[in-house]
């Protein structure tokens, strides 16, 4: 890519992440840089419901004549992901033969991934390793930008580390990148963001063979305990002792208890009960027992 816009085909950069990470800031930096070079730029994003914690994406397209504001699937020259699982969500947008995939290896596990109350249930979150994904794409760069930024003293500069890595995939001068970044970040953080950018860039330049960074974000070291299939339990309610204080009803995390017409406790959703024993422990009248024969085997 040279300065004359006429020589280029439309370049497509897809930037994805989690709400609050700075996806929009990153794409504005890139769009401004392209604009400075006289390219036609379209940058398209969706916000609204995904204010915080939701999946966020921004399409940046630049070239001589850009039509569609969004990148067609399979045509992103660069896919830049600020969070591990978000990059995987968009992987099919990456151009398969030549596309560059840049991702932070940091996991942001959404609360939605931790809803399964079954005994032994694990998170609903990507189990893939950076090695596996880097091998799958044409050009893969997986780095722990979050830790790199933390080491510099500001976790929030991780997106600038990634901009540094992105800069090696596009043909703009380092000074121009740094100038635009300086214009976008709060004045107090200009220095740390410059360092973050250069760190991300230096890593990518060295990463010819080793395209997965050390240190890596923790990779699912969890050992899932063995759960016996017939690990049954029983909730015993002694109605004679219940005085209808309602504590168990309010505190049951699965909301499976209720007071009946006589204002005494009853189990309305036995299928939801996980045997967590909160009701048993909190009942001031010892009216609830959780009977589980195999409990000894379970305690870790």
């Amino acid at each position, binding site marked *: 890519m040279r300065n004359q816009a006429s020589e280029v085909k439309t370049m497509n950069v897809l930037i994805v992440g989690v709400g609050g990470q700075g996806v929009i800031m990153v794409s504005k930096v890139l769009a401004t840089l392209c604009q400075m070079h006289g390219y036609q730029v379209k940058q398209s994003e969706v916000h609204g419901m995904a*204010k915080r914690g939701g999946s966020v994406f921004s399409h940046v397209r630049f070239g001589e004549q850009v039509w*569609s504001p969004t*990148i067609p699937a399979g045509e992103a020259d660069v896919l830049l992901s600020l969070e591990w699982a978000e990059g995987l969500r968009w992987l099919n947008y990456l151009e398969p033969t030549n596309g560059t995939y840049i991702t932070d290896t940091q996991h942001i596990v959404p609360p939605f991934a931790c809803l399964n109350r079954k005994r032994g249930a694990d*998170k609903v979150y990507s189990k893939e390793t950076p090695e596996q994904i880097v091998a799958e794409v044409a050009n893969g760069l997986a780095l722990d930008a979050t830790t790199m930024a933390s080491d510099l003293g500001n976790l929030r500069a991780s997106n600038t580390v990634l901009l540094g890595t992105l800069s090696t995939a596009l043909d703009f001068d380092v000074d121009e990148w740094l100038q635009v970044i300086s214009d*976008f970040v709060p004045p107090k953080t200009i220095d740390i963001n410059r360092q973050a950018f250069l760190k991300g860039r230096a890593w990518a330049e060295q990463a010819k063979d080793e395209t997965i960074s050390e240190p890596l974000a923790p990779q699912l070291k969890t050992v899932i305990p063995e759960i016996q299939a017939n690990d049954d339990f029983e909730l015993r309610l002694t109605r004679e002792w219940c005085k209808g204080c309602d504590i168990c009803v309010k505190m049951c995390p699965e909301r499976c208890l209720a007071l009946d017409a006589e204002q005494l406790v009853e189990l309305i959703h036995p299928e939801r009960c996980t045997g967590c*024993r909160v009701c048993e422990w909190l009942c001031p009248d010892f009216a609830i027992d959780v009977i589980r024969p195999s409990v000894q085997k*379970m305690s870790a």
Partner: protein
Amino acid sequence: MDDLVKKTTTKKNSKKDSQRPMTGNEALARGAWEAGVRVGSAYPGTPSTEIMENLSKYPSEDVAAQWATNEKVACDVAIGASFAGVRAMTSMKHVGLNVASDALMSVTYIGVNGGLVLIVCGDSGIHSSKNEQDSRVFAKFAMVPCLDPSDAQEALDYTKLAFDLSEDFDTPVIVRSTTRLSHTRSTVKVGKRVEKPSKGFVDNPSKNVMMPNNARVRHPQLIEREEKLKEHFATSGINKWEKGRKDIGIITMATSYAYVKESISDASILKLGASYPLPDKLIADFCKSVDRVLVVEELEPVVEDEIKVMGFAVEGKKYFSRVGEFSPEIVRQGLEAAGVLEKRDLAPAHDQRITPRPPVLCAGCPHTSGYMAIRAMNGRVMGDIGCYTLAAVEPLRSIDTCVSMGSSIGNAIGVAKAGLESKPIIATIGDSTFLHSGIPALIDAVYNEVDITVILLDNHITAMTGGQNHAATGKTLRGEETHRIDFEKLINAIGVTWVKKIDSYDVATMYQTFREAAEFKGVSVVISDRPCVLDPVKVKGPSLTVISENCVACQSCMNLGCPALSWSDEWYDGHHKVKIDQDACIGCSLCAQVCPADSIRPLEAEVH
């Protein structure tokens, strides 16, 4: 941030001072300002919110830009300014037009004095709405011209043009955007503001007072106006004919045009800048000039049907869906299905790996506790529109319905009057939504004597759309101090005798108060009060931490659905223990309050 964009560009591009990257919404606001608009009024709604926010960045001497209580008030304010003889606008999301439509259907008969423009932003694909209705249908219904810009430059140009058309043809004009246009940033060449001298109020009761005798006279004049607009659009240049292949012609508009251009370079194209009214002769000439005509339009077959009525066998919805947002892929697939383009066999290169990540209430969101407590009440809960609609899904799942802005209270009255419900009947509504259209329903509840509990979730801002002021924040759109509505006084004045205000972060009081309110026979109102954690200021207190050895993995705190809480790698009795992301935690303490094992404590205390 937007100022910074401008700064950077001007620095580098001193020669191209007039070229700036702008979102569609920024360009729409710029176009109105350049056209000399003097009054702008709107109620926030995604994706339209930033239009009025951007208009308010221009000097107050140029334009009065303000938030209205709802879209109808906004539209009436703009109509009033037009009566007074100045150029005026209102902006809204597509469903906002439903609220404003009563005024629109009348002002279309009246016409304008100062130019009157309604900017209506659709949400095809339903990114952040309750439906994806096609506003072009409304334009036809109201017989007002509808302009359809395809990018930010046209958004600016068409908005300016809309004011001229409005005055030249004595009609309100709709400029239609969609999420994709409103939220796409592209290069825009800007111009200078043109000051339009005020014409003053024109005394003309037979035109300005819509009553039967006058309306009967105006209706045929509307039909004449429609004819004149058709003639005008045939030659005005707003509809562009790009000559190409003779075997295939495509009629398209708005962002669909960009997708067509992305997919096919040599077809004959008629790009409609105005989707209503259609210039019959131009359309006929185009249809006759090619062997086959496809109409590519998002959502309803508005243009396709019109052209079919003209007697041309065009095709459209046969290949291009009536549902959802278009994309270059979808348009290409449609052209492939129609046999215009070669079929491409694009097998995805990678497995689909989807980690579910739906939007959630923020860490520390004051709505969270309210819905936990509401769920425990085991009531029949009518929801409303706002961030808190997210309480419809697990783990907070506690609202049973959500219809439209302000519907919750009216719906609750209906459930009560049906007389079949044995559970407590509850309506939950946010502060901004209550002001928007909840107040008339609350009056109705008192007037018709029902037994319901209204929970007013007052987070002191219009949160869902990104933090806009309203009549109960004490601040205007421009951030100036103004009168602040006092909810307690207002609700008392309506005649509600049972009103209590509680702190949204006090879970025990909340459970107790909700129960008392439900037990009260008649209309009871609980105001759950805490500012939003994002706006107007970002709240960040000291983080809490989980003392892992005490955690019994009961998942009580996980029922909050707080994004700062997730499973740690430790287990207790077959279940994951919990950890807190200290960066995300704002220290609201809700999780500590619901923890039965007292294992969540302030981080500071732990260190010492």
